[in-house]
């Protein structure tokens, strides 16, 4: 990737970020995200009763929290461009479609990352109350950020498929829900009875949960990085195919 590509991606990402903060979307998202995080961690997660000096009570909710919040943050990325017609403007600019896709994705991912960083009080609290493993906390955050990236990539893809934000939201929630449940025992048990082993293990391998758990334990494994990296790459690639299809028809 040359410097010109980087510059184009940065221009697009910057526009997207400015757009977030010029509308109430950003503030509503951050406030809701932090409130829900607090509620889940301290009330439902029984953070104080656990007596553990780690972030498990906090991180364990993220797959579920992101399930709704990430599609909400990303659903407009392409569907809005299609609805308003700015897609025509964007794709007749002297840029490659992938640059626009990556720029938009990175902008939204960085925005979610910002919201995630604002949960720092939970780190301070944990450090104050106990003697947590700093490495495990960092890897937990990295895992959570990658999980959000995977969900977001799915949302980017579904938002390119339709000009209706609601449909884009629902589609991405369903797909992300599948990514959570795929490896869950009740689901795999359901399949074990009739499906061949290879199918069961293929479906189970789509699950984000085991990979996310690794990060929570403080393990940053190349395989887990590759998993999230390939989910993101695949979904963004699909987005470019969808956009090309739109222009052809």
């Amino acid at each position, binding site marked *: 990737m040359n410097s010109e590509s980087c510059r184009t991606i940065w221009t697009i990402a910057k*526009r997207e970020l400015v757009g977030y903060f010029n509308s109430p979307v950003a503030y509503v998202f951050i406030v809701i995200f932090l409130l829900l995080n607090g509620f889940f961690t301290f009330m439902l997660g029984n953070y104080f009763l656990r007596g553990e000096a780690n972030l498990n009570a906090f991180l364990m909710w993220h797959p579920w929290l992101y399930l709704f919040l990430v599609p909400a943050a990303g659903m407009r990325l392409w569907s809005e461009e299609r609805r*308003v017609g700015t897609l025509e403007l964007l794709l007749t600019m002297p840029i490659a479609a992938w640059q626009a896709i990556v720029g938009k994705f990175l902008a939204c991912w960085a925005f979610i990352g910002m919201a995630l960083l604002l949960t720092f009080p939970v780190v301070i609290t944990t450090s104050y109350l106990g003697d947590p493993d700093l490495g495990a906390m960092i890897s937990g955050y990295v895992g959570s950020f990658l999980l959000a990236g995977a969900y977001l990539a799915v949302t980017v893809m579904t938002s390119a498929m339709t000009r209706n934000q609601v449909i884009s939201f629902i589609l991405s929630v369903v797909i992300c829900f599948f990514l959570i449940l795929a490896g869950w025992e009740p689901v795999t048990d359901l399949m074990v009875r009739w499906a061949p082993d290879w199918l069961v293990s293929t479906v189970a391998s789509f699950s984000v949960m085991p990979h996310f758990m690794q990060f929570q334990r403080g393990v940053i494994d190349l395989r887990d990085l590759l998993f999230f990296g390939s989910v993101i790459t695949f979904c963004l690639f699909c987005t470019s195919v969808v956009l090309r299809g739109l222009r052809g028809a």
Partner: protein
Amino acid sequence: MITVENLVKDFGPKRAVNRVSFTVKKGEILGFLGPNGAGKSTTMRMITGFIPPTSGRVVVGGHDVNEDPIPAKRLIGYLPESAPCYSDMTVHGFLSFAAEIRGLHGSAKEEAVRKAVGLCFLESVLHQSVDTLSKGFRHRTCLAQSIIHDPEVLVLDEPTDGLDPNQKHEIRQLLKRFGQNKAIIFSTHILEEVDAVCSRAVIIDRGHVVANGTPAELRARHDLAGSVSLRVQGVGAEAVRDRLAGLGIAGKVTVSSEAGSVLARVLPRDRTISGDLARAVAELAGREGWRFDELKTEEGRLDEVFRTITQPDSRRPAE
């Protein structure tokens, strides 16, 4: 600057654009006319590289838009039909974005934004959010975006749509000024715009180019183009007709009388010498001592030409 060769676009079984070819040179303003749904916007979208053609090609400044899109797109400024803008930005922010994505940065960017804002009369709304703008301002904001990099090629889909008469006039003046050193294609429904602005016009109907020429050439295709009409008082209609028909260069003569005057229309026998016909009619009237209060040569009317060569839906033959 722009070469369109045998452009074809199919949407499913429907052929929206069928073997369209034309060229636009630098310094030319091409008016793109046609009824709704004739394929104007589709053609423009193919020229700007938004949609790929089913077959045929578009070359802009030596670059094939489909094979080598980025250098071609650098040369083009495009105003899409609905004049879309990012509504969550200010006018200044939006134009800065357009300039940056065109590779303008720092002071060059500021200068380009300032210039485009001046040309499109946007000073008063510069720091206003796009979604609070009236339609005319939003339209001009999108137009400003298309000229921000001083492109060699401008493709404008209905640039005066939705503007009030003063704004229309301003945009036409702008187009004329740009037309001196750019290649411009713009589509319109408004026929007087063609006369006012274009150096050439292409009429497209159901995907086909049905006419391509200067506004004067198109007008000359009108049935009555080159005819001379004369209004005479105090002479019988028969006499007027006989005398006029006696002129060597006159073709068909029709007369009608109303309220004491006779209105005669003389078609030239040969259209290429219509200039002489008016003089001959005037001399005849002088010799005969007719009192006439109107004598004029019909230049042909674009709207009539447009109507005869493009058919409305109801009169289309079944395909």
